[in-house]
């Protein structure tokens, strides 16, 4: 009987061992997929920052092409890995990649249409990547919101660049959009499961909002000085920088 217990123990722990080994290996594969998504989503973001007043369509087209390459090559690998899995159990392993992906996708969408890419829309694009018989991976609300928080940093960079390019109205559009996101998030943050990360991100976000506001302020006070000083030999509203000179 002793040996019986022993073998049953052995059998049971053999099963536990297999379970843990499989879990660890899957986690490892997911971490790798997540890193790939991160690095390539960052490339998309840099591509978007190559925008200027004249190349908008071309640059965004390439960014969107790159983004769908990320989706099809890397996110799809993640989706396959997680087929029918409990997406929450291994969330920490893929969360950084998904957040960066959200950042890239929402940035593209904003530049293209001036609107926020919804979570539902994003998740709809993931559906075709899944085997229809399994439960599909869907980006969860927390990762989406964390990615959105990072988006505002990129929008701040974009706004500074747009002002340099004379696209003041574009900058103001960004300013409004970012303010709106910040304001909405203030109500959402306290409801989030583990809001610690998010709270520090909120502080960074407020800094970003204020950087854009300060840049707009600066353009405005300088512009206001224009009319009283010179009269108007040039009829256009005196935008900053290069814009009032044809290329």
């Amino acid at each position: 009987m002793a040996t019986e217990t022993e073998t049953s123990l052995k059998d049971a722990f053999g099963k536990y061992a297999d379970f843990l080994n499989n879990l660890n290996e899957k986690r490892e594969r997911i971490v790798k997929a997540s890193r790939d998504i991160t690095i390539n989503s960052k490339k998309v973001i840099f591509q978007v920052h190559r925008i200027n007043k004249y190349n908008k369509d071309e640059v965004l087209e390439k960014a969107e092409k790159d983004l769908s390459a990320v989706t099809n090559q890397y996110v799809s690998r993640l989706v396959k890995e997680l087929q029918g899995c409990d997406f929450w159990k291994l969330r920490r392993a893929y969360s950084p990649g998904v957040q960066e992906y959200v950042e890239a996708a929402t940035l593209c969408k904003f530049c293209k249409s001036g609107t926020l890419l919804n979570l539902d829309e994003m998740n709809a694009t993931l559906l075709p990547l899944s085997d229809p018989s399994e439960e599909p991976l869907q980006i969860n609300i927390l990762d989406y919101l964390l990615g959105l928080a990072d988006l505002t940093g990129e929008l701040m960079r974009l706004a500074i660049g747009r002002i340099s390019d004379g696209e003041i109205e574009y900058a103001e559009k960004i300013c409004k959009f970012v303010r709106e996101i910040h304001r909405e998030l203030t109500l959402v943050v306290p409801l989030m499961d583990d809001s610690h990360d998010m709270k520090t991100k909120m502080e960074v976000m407020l800094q970003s909002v204020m950087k854009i506001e300060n840049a707009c302020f600066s353009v405005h006070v300088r512009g206001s000085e224009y009319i009283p000083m010179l009269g108007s030999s040039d009829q256009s509203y005196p935008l900053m920088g290069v814009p009032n000179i044809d290329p």
Partner: protein
Amino acid sequence: PALEKQFEAFRVQLEESGSLKDRIRAVAMDIDSAARLMHSCLLLVHQSRPLPEVLDKAKAQIGLIKDHYSRLAEILHECSGQYYRYHGDWRSETQTVVSLLALMHWLETGNLLMHDETGEKLGLNNSEFGLDIEDYLIGVCFMSNELPRYVVNQVTAGDYDCPRKVLKFLIDLNASFRMLNLRNDFLRKKFDSLKYDLRRVEEVYYDVKIRGLSSSGDPMEDEG
């Protein structure tokens, strides 16, 4: 037996004070929710929405918050003399509420909401359940932190007189705080932040003034 009796008595008392604490925390969280809503309304001020629109929505919360405080008062009435035992459980929420009320008041009147006025708005003005002075002062500092951003956005929206008004307000406030010999470290730090706010507003006023955009009043004198 003596031991058991003693610990049985302790069990009862600890449970009572524990459940009291729970009830207090629950009210504090209600205050927090209402304050957040109020804050999110007030944030619209940075988008230069018309004041009435901004304030009306925010004001709607005051009544609610006051009710929460009266519930708090009732709870604390049960354990008289222990205000400060549980004070830590709602003080940070109170500081936030003070800052929001003070901001609304300033937007409407250009003046500082006084300690007793604040207490009145919240029903915190009787001797048993009042508004702690340090909480009030910290709340005022929080409120001042919002002003530099406000000034910047107002100027962008074309209101060139705003920096002068805010500057005057902050100079007075700053001078008032200087009268105090602050020992509370947290409050001291917050007062430091108020000094930065003043400095930032001075810079904005300078930007407007040097470009001749401001009507030329002196911030230290009320235009009459």
